[in-house]
Every structure is written in C-alpha cells, then in structure tokens.
C-alpha cells in the first residue's frame, strides 16, 4: 500500500511522532515582539485580515467558556474547546495561542485544575494584549 505523507510542520505529541515523509518538526513558539505600548505584536498574512477580528473574538469567548467549565469541573468541555483552539491558533499565525491551548488541553485530560487555573488567565491576557501586523 502506498504510504501516506506527513505534511504537518509540527507534531504536538512527540511520544506519537509518526512522521513518514516531510520536513523536520520546527519549533512553533514565536519570539515575543513587544510594541511601543507593551502590546504583543504578531505578523499575519494580509490575506487573512477579513477573518481575524472574528477569530480573536471567538477565542476570547472560548476562554470564558473554559473558565465556566473549569468552575463546574467539566474537564471534557475544557479539553474539547482547547483542542479546537490549539488547531486554529497557529493555522492563523498565532502560534502562542496554540502553545497555551495545548497546555490547557493536556491539563484537562488529566484533570489538572491548577495548571488550567494558571494558564487560562494568561491566555486571556495574551488575547487582550496581542496586536496584529498584516504583511
């Protein structure tokens, strides 16, 4: 049988690295770039501009959803929402969203409330600070 390709540029779970063909995994985390007023700058493909406001609004809503779910000890909802955010963030160019959501997703899998309590506010703070530079 013809093997499938493996075109992803990062494998989120290094314990299950199943890459068959494709480039080496690359580090995802973007270096922090701080603007003049303390905002975090992220460079995004200009063709994505029409989608970005809704994307960021939806991520902020998801942080609220996960906070409510955490309060109810509903870890499955936290995991599901974080899983979706992990996939969407870096696809738009927000690698730090993916990084933080991945931590929250993993913590939700194990019921690690303290990590989620620590990282959800950090994620919310990032969403408030981020400033998009289209290029």
């Amino acid at each position: 049988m013809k093997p499938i390709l493996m075109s992803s540029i990062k494998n989120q779970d290094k314990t299950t690295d199943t890459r068959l063909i494709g480039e080496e995994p690359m580090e995802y985390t973007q270096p922090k770039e701080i603007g003049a007023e303390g905002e975090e700058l992220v460079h995004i493909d200009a063709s994505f501009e029409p989608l970005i406001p809704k994307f960021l609004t939806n991520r902020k809503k998801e942080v609220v959803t996960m906070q409510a779910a955490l309060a109810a000890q509903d870890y499955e909802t936290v995991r599901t929402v974080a899983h979706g955010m992990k996939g969407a963030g870096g696809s738009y160019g927000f690698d730090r969203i993916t990084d933080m959501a991945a931590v929250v997703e993993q913590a939700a899998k194990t019921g690690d409330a303290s990590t989620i309590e620590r990282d959800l506010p950090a994620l919310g703070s990032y969403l408030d600070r981020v400033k998009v530079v289209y290029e």
Partner: protein
Amino acid sequence: MNNSSSGQDPLLLLVEDEQDTADLVTLIMKERGYQVLHAADGSVALEKVALMPPPSLVMLDIQLPHIDGITILETIRATPDWENVPVIMLTAVADQDKIKKVRALTVQDYVLKPFRQETLLRSVDQSRTTSARPQ
C-alpha cells in the same frame, strides 16, 4: 462524474467542526480556485457522501461531533463513485492508532493542525498526482 472533470471549478468537501478553521481553509482554497462545500459535523458529511456526486477532493477532520472522521473515511472508501476520491486528513489528532487506521484506508496526506498555508497547498498539489488507490 467527478466534479474535477465537469469544466467548473473543482469542488472541495471540507469536513471540519471548528468554524474559524473552516473559514480559513475556505478562504485559502477559494483563492486556489476551488468551490468549497462545508460540512460542520459527521452526520452532515455522511449525507453528502450518500446524496451528492463525488467532489474533486475531501479534507477531513478526525475529531467531529456525532460521527468521527475515520468512520466517514471508511464510508467514502466503500461508496461507489467516491472510493477513489483523494482525501487529505486535516486534524490535530496525532494518535498512533488512529493514524494506523487512516493508513489502512489510504489517504493522500495527513496534515496536522495547526497547519501553514503553504503546507496545505503543497498537500493539495500532491493529491492531484497521487491516486486514492494504488494501481
């Protein structure tokens, strides 16, 4: 008849439950000249497989509401007219067992989310030159 030979823009069936990811893929693929038909959950996707002519390409998430992407892939491969449609898995699931199941069903590529635009488009280009079934 496969839509790719109808003289119209090629048709992509995108099976993706995360709306912002679906919007991004739709934007990218429309710029590439595709019509995009979006199914937001597994049940809707199976309806499309049962009722519509085969598209030029399917992009398929694994973790979906109601019916998972592997079940949809199994159905595609068992459906006359659809059995040879190129399928690209587009998922944040890097689980070894699931990838083994996907390999057994033959897909053109397995793109992990988050993805880069150029990675996705390269995968699309490769799918045109590889058949769903080994010759």
